[in-house]
């Protein structure tokens, strides 16, 4: 890059950051407001719809009661699940946006490049060897996610910047890990295999306060950390060259961001199993509302929260008398979305 070019692109980058820091325009403000309304509506819906339908007004009343049947249904049974859907959806979406930025690929989301499969591998290793549950499985899942991220990074390192290389290699790594998972399931004792198979579908079933509180706390901390690291995310988005010129230490920045993103998706996968496509699609949908800057992070988190929440409501109620795992719903809906995305972006992206 010649000097004049460099100054030119630096100037462009600075002005882009300034633009991103400006308050939102009218259209984006309206869109954010609408998104917030959808999120609140889906949250209330997940509290009111179920085996017994409770009116939203009654739901809100029940939130402030201290006892009674309705209170128990709403606060003890449905609230932890609804909160988990919101926080975990936001966590998946933010993890997705970090990965898409770092891989510079709209498809480079953690589930496409195999991290969720790797997290499952980690959890399965713990389940089948140590027979552990809860915390140790969660740690296994997070470590599995980190290991897979490192493996994919290693396999594409130094191979030249092709946007889709990481996707192809990721699919391959994911397939090997999926085979490993299937093999472990076959060898596992029956009870372990059954519980692991249910978990594999990705479900919020059985998420009560006990299962939800700690993970919600952890992902909240990680999301706050990501908020403070947002400058690094823009530097990465602008490219290594410009990032370094603006005083960023890109290697360190990227490593830190990946750690946060893997942490987010690892915790969620550990608790409710692999959830496909929320991480992929939420950042794209959020871009329809806000292009970039800090508001985009908010929009992404809100979109992810609304998506997982709505998917869970669909899974709970689509088939009478049966509850479909939320992971199956996001798999089907997200896959359809991916097909559209691929068909639409193909011409200019690849």
């Amino acid at each position: 890059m010649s000097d004049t070019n460099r100054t030119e692109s630096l100037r462009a980058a600075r002005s882009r950051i300034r633009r991103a820091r400006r308050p939102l325009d009218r259209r984006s403000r309206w869109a954010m407001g609408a998104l917030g309304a959808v999120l609140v509506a889906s949250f209330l819906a997940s509290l009111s719809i179920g085996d017994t339908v409770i009116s939203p007004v009654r739901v809100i009343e029940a939130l402030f009661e201290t006892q009674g049947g309705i209170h128990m249904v709403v606060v003890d049974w449905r609230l932890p699940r609804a909160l988990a859907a919101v926080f975990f959806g936001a966590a998946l979406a933010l993890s997705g946006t970090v990965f898409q930025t770092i891989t510079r690929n709209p498809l480079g989301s953690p589930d496409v490049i195999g991290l969720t499969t790797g997290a499952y591998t980690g959890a399965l290793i713990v389940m089948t060897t140590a027979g552990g549950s809860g915390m140790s499985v969660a740690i296994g899942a997070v470590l599995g996610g980190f290991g897979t991220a490192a493996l994919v990074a290693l396999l594409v390192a130094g191979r030249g910047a092709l946007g889709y290389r990481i996707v192809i290699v990721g699919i391959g790594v994911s397939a090997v890990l999926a085979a490993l998972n299937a093999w472990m399931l076959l060898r596992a004792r029956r009870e372990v295999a059954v519980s692991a198979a249910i978990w594999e579908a990705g479900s919020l079933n059985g998420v009560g306060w006990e299962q939800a509180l700690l993970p919600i706390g952890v992902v909240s901390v990680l999301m706050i950390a990501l908020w403070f690291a947002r400058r690094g995310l823009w530097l990465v988005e602008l490219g290594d060259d410009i990032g370094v010129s603006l005083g960023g230490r890109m290697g360190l920045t990227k490593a830190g961001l990946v750690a946060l993103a893997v942490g987010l998706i690892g915790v969620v996968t550990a608790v409710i199993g692999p959830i496909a496509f929320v991480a992929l699609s939420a950042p794209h949908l959020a871009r329809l509302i806000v292009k970039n800057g800090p508001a985009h992070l908010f929009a992404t988190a809100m979109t992810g929260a609304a998506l997982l929440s709505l998917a869970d409501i669909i899974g709970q109620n689509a088939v009478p008398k049966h509850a479909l795992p939320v992971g199956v719903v996001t798999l089907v809906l997200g896959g359809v979305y991916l097909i559209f995305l691929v068909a639409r972006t193909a011409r200019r992206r690849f």
Partner: protein
Amino acid sequence: MIPAARTTRDPHRSSPGRVAIVVVLALVALGVASVIGLTVGTKFVGPSTVLDAILRFDGSDLQLVVRESRIPRTVLGIVVGLALGAAGAVMQGLTRNALADPGMLGVNAGASVAVAIAVAALGLRDFPHLMAFALVGALIATIGVVLLGAAGGGSPVTLVLSGVALAAVLGGVTTALVLLNPTAFLQMRSWESGALAGRDLSVLGFAGPAIAVGLALALLMTRSLDVLALGHDTAAGLGVKIGALRTGAVAAVTLLAGTATAVAGPIAFLGLAAPHIARGVVGSSQKAIVPLAAVIGAIVVVLGDVVGRVIIAPQEVPVGIVMAFVAAPFLIWIGRRKNPVQM
């Protein structure tokens, strides 16, 4: 994609004499693999016992193992391997895409979802019905992925990603169907891992002819596929009927991949790996690649089944899982190449 790149390849590699030698050697290797498939397992069975079991059956335990298990598995392994190897080669030749594979592009997932519908919704159990459903599912998925790839502007990576997305959706539907129906869950679980164990040779009555027709179609199309490599316009100018070729290729892939999936469950990446190995040996002519990829596919499946039998004996690893370990690294290797898409 780039005709110029093809001329830089060593032209001697695809000379007819060399191809004939390679195919004969591959068939010999398949013979050796079959002998291993018949003799090696949790119990080693000597070749003489195998021969006795076929010619002078006396009902002894060892001979029973050979007749009831080893022979069906080896024969079905050969058939499935031939089918998947050839299907992958045809798909790569048609799409001019080094990443094409019936498993990855969702064809096997299409067969799976159709079988899941048959099992869960209609309660079907017998092989002819399941195979019919698998073929219809594979056909719809093949057409779907070809259309999707075209909608995406014909870019090679688009085709793959469309296929992966399609496979994901179909997989999700399969999971949903199976979760709603516990009996189907158990039946689909063993079938989905891709196993040759416990399959009866009688399935060949239906699967054999379908795969034979598919193989014949595939071999008939090799010349046109070679011309197609020069580009659509050139091929059309040289008298290749592109529409007919595409229809024939879709039919061949459907018959081969659909039937193989009905027999052994979804086996991914073999259709990706076998043509690449073949291309490495005989160069870029489809005339050589299709038959060689088929034979290589058969060798890999038969040996993969043996590995699955012995690696954690007395338990077994289904051949579909072994294949993923063996063949998926090929995708990683292709992804690491300078230009992953070019053949």
